[in-house]
């Protein structure tokens, strides 16, 4: 049975009433914060769609050979990624981040881009892509896998989706909030493509370039907007400044916390990955290092290779 996208959208739109008990997506609200759970049907549908898509692709493309240990682990990576995505999008984190606390809004962004993105990419086996490589849009994936493109795009998303006008505009409605979360989700996948691309031929070959890319794109550049949030004289986001209070912290402190999360929240993820990349780089260097010089006694014995042969070997 095929489901047309527009019919699914129409079904979801039933839940888009702002005053209903069941809503489609987390958005800003003037209601006082309550710890009574609220259902967001669009979030559940999105998570279910991801899982169903993955299971169908796994059954359809699984090769007729025993899977390696690494391949058998991939569904767990993907499942963990979906679970993190769910936690970051659904009540309470999603609801708090959409309309009450700038710090939770920032935490959501970090989970999307530093947790969900890499885990989902790690969960996709190479043989999922056999069909995709034949498609026209695969060229877009190839382009997005270039470090410069991915880094620029990620930081463009970071800047534009944390600009006060964007946050205040999009978080005010369910559809706007949905768009912002989808953009974050895409950015989280894109930024890791040069490093963890399921198609290993699209990863940058040099671990050093991957490490520098990751440091600049995810570690260093986000510190600048993070600094703006920490050192701003007052709240920048209308949404969070005029939101009903939660946890009894002021809007300014909440924003400073958000800036701090943006500045240092990537450290526990980026630095261990950098360490792994440097170890790989070091191993690769050792693998291509020239052999140690022969003992002098060999040279004296006339068994050393000629200068011309040495030059050719190196």
């Amino acid at each position, binding site marked *: 049975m095929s489901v047309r996208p527009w019919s699914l959208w129409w079904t979801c739109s039933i839940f888009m009433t702002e005053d209903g008990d069941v809503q489609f997506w987390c958005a800003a609200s*003037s*209601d*006082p*914060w*309550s710890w*009574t759970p609220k259902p967001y049907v669009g979030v559940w549908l999105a998570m279910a769609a991801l899982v169903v898509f993955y299971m169908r692709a796994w059954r359809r493309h699984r090769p007729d050979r025993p899977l390696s240990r*690494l391949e058998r682990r991939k569904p767990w*990576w993907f499942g963990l990624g979906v679970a993190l995505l769910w936690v970051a999008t659904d009540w309470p984190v999603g609801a708090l981040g959409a309309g009450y606390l700038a710090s939770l809004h920032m935490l959501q962004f970090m989970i999307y881009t530093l947790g969900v993105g*890499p885990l989902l990419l*790690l969960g996709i086996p190479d043989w999922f892509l056999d069909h995709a490589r034949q498609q*026209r849009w*695969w*060229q*877009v*994936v*190839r*382009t*997005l*896998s*270039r470090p410069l*493109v991915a880094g*620029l*795009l990620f930081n*463009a*998303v970071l*800047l*534009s989706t944390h*600009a*006060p*006008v*964007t946050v205040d505009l999009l978080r005010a409605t369910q559809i706007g909030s949905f768009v912002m979360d989808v953009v974050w989700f895409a950015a989280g996948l894109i930024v890791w493509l040069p*490093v*963890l691309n399921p198609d*290993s*031929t*699209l*990863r*940058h*070959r*040099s671990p050093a*370039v991957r490490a520098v890319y990751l440091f600049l794109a995810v570690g260093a550049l986000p510190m600048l907007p993070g600094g703006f949030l920490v050192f701003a*004289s*007052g*709240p920048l986001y*209308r949404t969070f*400044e*005029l*939101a*009903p*209070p939660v946890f*009894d912290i*002021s*809007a*300014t402190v909440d924003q400073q916390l958000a800036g701090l999360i943006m500045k240092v929240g990537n450290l*526990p*993820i980026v630095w*261990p*990955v950098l360490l*792994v990349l440097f170890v*790989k780089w070091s191993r690769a260097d050792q693998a291509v290092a020239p052999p140690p010089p022969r003992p002098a006694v060999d040279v004296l014995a006339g068994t050393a290779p000629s200068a011309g042969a040495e030059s050719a070997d190196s």
Partner: protein
Amino acid sequence: MADPPAAPENPGNPSGDVGPADPHRPGGPSGTTIVIGLVVTFVLVLVGGLVLRANDDGRTSTAADFSGNLLPEPRPRPDFELVDTSGEPFDFATETDGELTILFFGYANCPDVCPITLATLSEALELVRGVDAKVVFVSVDPERDTPEQIRAYLDRFDSRFIGLTGTPEQLKAAQVAAGVTPAYNDGPNERGGYDVGHSSQVIVFTPDDLGRLVYGFGVRQDEWAADLERVRDNRDWWPQ
């Protein structure tokens, strides 16, 4: 973070760049074009947002344009007597005579408007140090708000804020005198208590003892700060 799985490098790609494009792919915009388009779109959104924001900030720069409503007919400072948080009588007109005064009616269990308004005022007054304003909070929930509770509540925002309470009749008379709609019990809430429906208006009385500005809910800290600076400097809007 888990160790990323080791992946075979691309031996046929010594430049380290991604592989060549498929020569058999159909025509149409290239991936690079699409990505550049996306980046340009994001940058335009960002720049547009900054321009809108700059225009929005410039809104308060014109002489008569306050974030609050400038009353065409200023209200006289109301005359009512209540009890402050130390239990002493507080005559509003006498105690605030000749001073810049910000009057607000609310209650300590308010989940939204009151804490947001008081926090906004507190932060705005921090932004414009040197503005000597008396902030007077009148509780409209005499059943629950004792003077001690009001003091503890206000201290969360600013210990200089003045808290007042009284009998239901006194409070109703104070609200009528100030020109706001009297508060009412709004029924039980999900937190096991009850809500109080009350005016969200904040009234600013200038040192000439007239209420000239009225603010609804939703005015931001920087807007309050800009208005308070203008009131302090007595630049261009109230008669000498």
